[in-house]
């Protein structure tokens, strides 16, 4: 059964002091509903990673449905760390495929600016192993720093090699009016940016932001002109930060991409663009290798070429990725999906790539222990 994406909407990634978590979720949902035309969803699914831990609204989907005026919708709130958005879309697809519902609204929303930076990083850390890692002061950022250090020493590279990951994202984000940091990043800025944990600097990390993105999924018709979900997979692997740091591999990302491509009947080379998880430049490099765009240790070498630019052979992060558009953790997977849909519809404006036919979208949770991939076309 085909699943159509009948409408999409996002809010600008920013620090939205005037709006709360529920407000931005409803705002994005409203845009997606307007984009889809006259539809009334049977179910509402909301992806959010941090709201409960930050003392914000819990059971968010129920309150979003209420805010939209739906009194009889089935609601689910999905919390899978930074894979929440992808997991919510897969759950919505399952509800439609099972025949339970025809139309489902999926919203990803996150409100980070109400928390001070150290509190925000603490709450983000709860997605790691709470007993062995988070309670010993480890965070996704520190894990990224350790991974980066091991990557550099294993493959005999200089830190500057990671610049190209950030450069590509910022180059694409510079024309995205919804990006929190819409500017190009030059080498000097990158090398001068303050160190957070050696060797990882501020410019290696995606900036946290407030943001929401939404999509209307519906049972597909044979003749639809809408973008459809062709394949998807949600896989998990060894939990914890140790394995990706020491092995420099993301088995869940590899398996998830392979399964989603198989279901779609597609090859990697059939993709016109990809949205991979770039919460930091280390995870971005491992993701490039995990899905098969580069051999182990060669992601940064390929990033130096023009291959991943909008005009390249495999554009990545076409709206700036999390690095330039901003990282709204629980909504990040939904942003990726919406941006890929805009590319495939030809509605990407200055960020439009040519001949966009199929896209692979992958989000990672708990430092790569979970991976959700969708193939769109």
């Amino acid at each position, binding site marked *: 059964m085909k699943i159509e994406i009948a409408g999409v909407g996002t809010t600008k990634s920013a620090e939205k002091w005037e709006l709360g978590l529920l407000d931005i979720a409803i705002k994005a949902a409203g845009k997606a509903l307007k984009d889809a035309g006259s539809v009334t969803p049977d179910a509402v699914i909301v992806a959010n990673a941090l709201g409960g831990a930050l003392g914000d609204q819990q059971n968010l989907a129920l309150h979003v449905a209420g805010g939209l005026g739906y009194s009889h919708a089935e609601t689910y709130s999905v919390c899978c760390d930074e894979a929440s958005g992808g997991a919510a879309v897969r759950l919505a697809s399952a509800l439609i495929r099972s025949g339970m519902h025809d139309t489902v609204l999926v919203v990803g929303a996150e409100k980070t600016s109400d928390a001070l*930076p*150290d*509190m925000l*990083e*603490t709450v983000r*850390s709860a997605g790691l192993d709470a*007993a*062995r*890692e*988070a*309670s*010993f*002061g*480890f*965070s996704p*950022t*520190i894990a990224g*720093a*350790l991974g980066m*250090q*091991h990557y550099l*020493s294993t493959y005999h590279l200089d830190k500057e090699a990671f610049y190209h990951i950030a450069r590509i994202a910022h180059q694409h984000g510079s024309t995205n009016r919804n990006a929190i940091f819409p500017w190009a990043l030059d080498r000097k800025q990158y090398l001068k940016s*303050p*160190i*957070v*944990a*050696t*060797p*990882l600097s501020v410019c290696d990390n995606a900036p946290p932001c407030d943001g929401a993105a939404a999509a209307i999924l519906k049972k597909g018709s044979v003749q639809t002109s809408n973008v459809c979900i062709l394949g998807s997979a949600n896989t998990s692997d060894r939990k*914890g*930060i*140790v*394995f990706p*740091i*020491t092995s420099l591999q993301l088995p869940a990302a590899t398996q998830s991409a392979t399964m989603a491509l198989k279901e779609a009947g597609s090859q990697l080379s059939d993709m016109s663009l990809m949205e991979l998880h770039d919460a930091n430049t280390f995870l971005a490099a491992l993701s490039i290798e995990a899905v098969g765009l580069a051999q182990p240790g060669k992601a940064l070498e390929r990033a130096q070429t023009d291959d991943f630019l909008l005009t390249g052979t495999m554009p990545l992060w076409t709206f700036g990725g999390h690095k330039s558009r901003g990282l709204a953790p629980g909504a990040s997977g939904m942003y990726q999906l919406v941006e890929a849909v805009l590319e495939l519809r030809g509605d990407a404006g200055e960020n439009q790539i040519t001949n966009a036919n199929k896209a692979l979208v992958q989000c990672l949770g708990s430092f790569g222990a979970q991976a959700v991939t969708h193939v769109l076309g």
Partner: protein
Amino acid sequence: MQIAKSWRRQPSNLRLEGTRCTGCGQLEFPTVIRCAQCGEIEFETYQFAGKGKVIVASTVYEATRDFGEHVPYCAAIIELEEGIHLATMITDVDPADVTVGMEVEMVTRRIAAQGDNGPILYAYKFAPQLQIL
């Protein structure tokens, strides 16, 4: 770090106790409830020797809440003699002097305090192995 949670984790945090699977002998740290290798649910307590070597290290300048007092500190992945990989802080040494392959041993240190009046968590860190002269 709530008091009960801290108390519950004392065997692993203070004595480096893990488990050995009675089915396949797999060592785990900290304790597990079911063996991921063979599915066994019976275990023996296994106390790790507390010696290992650094695989990778980083000097942390921006910490999570409750860890700001330690900045800058060394976060590392070490390999215990028994083969287990562990995320831990390296202490009693300048973070810049921590090197890959450095031999380290377990020490008990203050990890974090919950505010000015909350409980203090003591647990393992690792320090360079003392040389016997």
